[in-house]
């Protein structure tokens, strides 16, 4: 099939003008081909005798270079017309390559043109000496602001070492990476797999330092910018603990609930009714959160702290909250947090009771506007009706941003938490 035009790849063999045995001379018309633009008469370039017609009339989409017929030239040997085979080499789509095997395929590899734009000028090269300016993409700068990541601590992987959004998120999440990734505890500990070998000491130390810096930067910024006010309130946990004990007796081991789940549920529902506590202080104004995304402060083995979010906590049942908490802690401690969980808790709860303290006055996670704290649940002296007794109680505390709310709102918020904990069965 000859190449019959600049843009021709296939042709349709319309008609043979010769049959096997016919004698032909150079320039004779042997066939008619349709190139989708025109019907062209195909000439033969050598004298000889038609040997065999290989492609029947009417065959469509015959690639350029396909051998259409063979010719017995003077020497008696049977060859495809030279031109056809060569054409196959130059323009052959893969399936026809076989036909042109014997001829040296001359298709040169197409190299991409080198980018020889006029004198490449890169900012690194012409940077004004001295003023070391951090290369940070605009979106990375914004996310760093949200996650409270100190850009100076972030190593960039973008062009020429620029810091990208992913770099910032990794730095924030780096706070999460415990010394060694623990196999996923998931809902039920699977048969104990061999624990992963602890990361080399150097790497851990370096990560600890970066994490320390990141937390330090966030806390420093919160303290510097947020006018905190603090409230505390002792909450009677008698009914809650009694209900929980009954409930766990009824449940199988793997479905048991922890006291902290009750606290989280109460806070979530109280926040839902106190929107002023739920959102962000950005560019000098309060932005209400879209939904109650409860940040849960999770302490990490070997030090470090992260507060990923349980989304729409106010709508979750105790079982759902328990499962969410279990999953979040496991993934937080194994460094598999999703960035969405990182960037949008609308209020955070810290529960240091287990570490043995009575109450905690925390630092708000900027740009959030409130932080709820719980100490340990313990038997404490309790006076009621003039009688002194002892009851399980917990100190609930609130650190709040005075730009977004006042003590009055804070107090009603803590009182609401207490009231909700008096009816655990409704949580």
């Amino acid at each position, binding site marked *: 099939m000859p190449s019959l035009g600049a843009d021709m790849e296939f042709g349709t063999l319309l008609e043979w003008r010769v049959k096997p045995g016919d004698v032909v001379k150079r320039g004779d018309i042997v066939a008619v081909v349709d190139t989708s633009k025109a019907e062209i008469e195909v000439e033969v370039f050598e004298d000889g005798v038609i040997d065999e017609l290989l492609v029947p009339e009417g065959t469509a989409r015959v690639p350029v270079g396909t051998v259409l017929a063979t010719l017995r030239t003077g020497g008696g040997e049977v060859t495809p017309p030279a031109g056809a085979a060569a054409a196959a080499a130059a323009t052959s789509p893969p399936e026809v390559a076989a036909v042109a095997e014997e001829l040296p395929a001359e298709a040169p590899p197409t190299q991409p043109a080198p980018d020889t734009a006029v004198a490449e000028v890169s900012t690194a090269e012409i940077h004004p000496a001295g003023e070391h300016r951090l290369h940070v993409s605009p979106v990375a700068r914004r996310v760093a602001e949200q996650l409270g990541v100190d850009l100076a601590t972030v190593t960039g992987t973008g062009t020429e070492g620029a810091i990208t959004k992913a770099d910032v998120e990794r730095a924030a999440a780096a706070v999460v990476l*415990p*010394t*060694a990734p*623990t*196999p996923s*505890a998931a809902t*039920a*500990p699977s048969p*104990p797999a061999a*624990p*992963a070998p*602890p990361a080399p000491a150097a790497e851990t130390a370096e990560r600890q330092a970066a994490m320390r810096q990141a937390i330090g930067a966030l806390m420093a910024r919160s303290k510097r910018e947020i006018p905190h006010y603090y409230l505390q309130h002792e909450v009677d946990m008698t009914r809650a603990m009694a209900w929980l*004990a009954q409930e*766990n*007796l009824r449940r*199988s*081991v*793997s479905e*048991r609930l*922890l*006291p*902290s789940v009750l606290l989280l549920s109460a806070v979530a529902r109280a926040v839902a009714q106190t929107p002023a506590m739920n959102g962000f202080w950005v560019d000098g104004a309060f932005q209400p959160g879209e939904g109650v995304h409860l940040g849960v402060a999770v*302490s990490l*083995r*070997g030090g470090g702290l992260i507060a990923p979010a349980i989304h729409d906590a106010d709508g979750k049942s105790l079982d759902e909250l328990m499962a969410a*908490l*279990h999953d979040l*802690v496991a993934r937080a401690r194994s460094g598999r947090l999703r960035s969405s969980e990182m960037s949008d808790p609308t209020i955070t709860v810290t529960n240091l009771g*287990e570490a043995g303290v009575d109450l905690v006055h925390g630092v708000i996670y900027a740009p959030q506007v409130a932080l709820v704290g719980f100490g340990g649940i313990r038997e404490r002296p309790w006076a009621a009706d003039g009688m002194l007794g002892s009851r399980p109680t917990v100190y609930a505390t609130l650190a709040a941003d005075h730009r977004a709310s006042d003590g009055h709102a804070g107090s009603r918020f803590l009182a609401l938490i207490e009231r909700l904990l008096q009816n655990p069965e409704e949580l």
Partner: protein
Amino acid sequence: MNEQELREVLIDALTQIAPEIDAAQIDPQADLAEQLDIDSMDFLNVVVALHERTGIEIPERDYGKLATLDDAVAYLAAAQ
């Protein structure tokens, strides 16, 4: 299960929670929560693991009897 097997099962469950701890370092007489910085979530995971491996269901009120390694092994042996 004899005491030695119970001890191994318990240690396995504990290293699940605290992979960086070398089993040999655990002081069998000292408070486990204190030594291994275990919180209530971790302890619940241990209780669930023990239930799966040994079939023993530890009620919440007995949690106090598993304060140390030796106490826990003794409790488990008795509970079988």
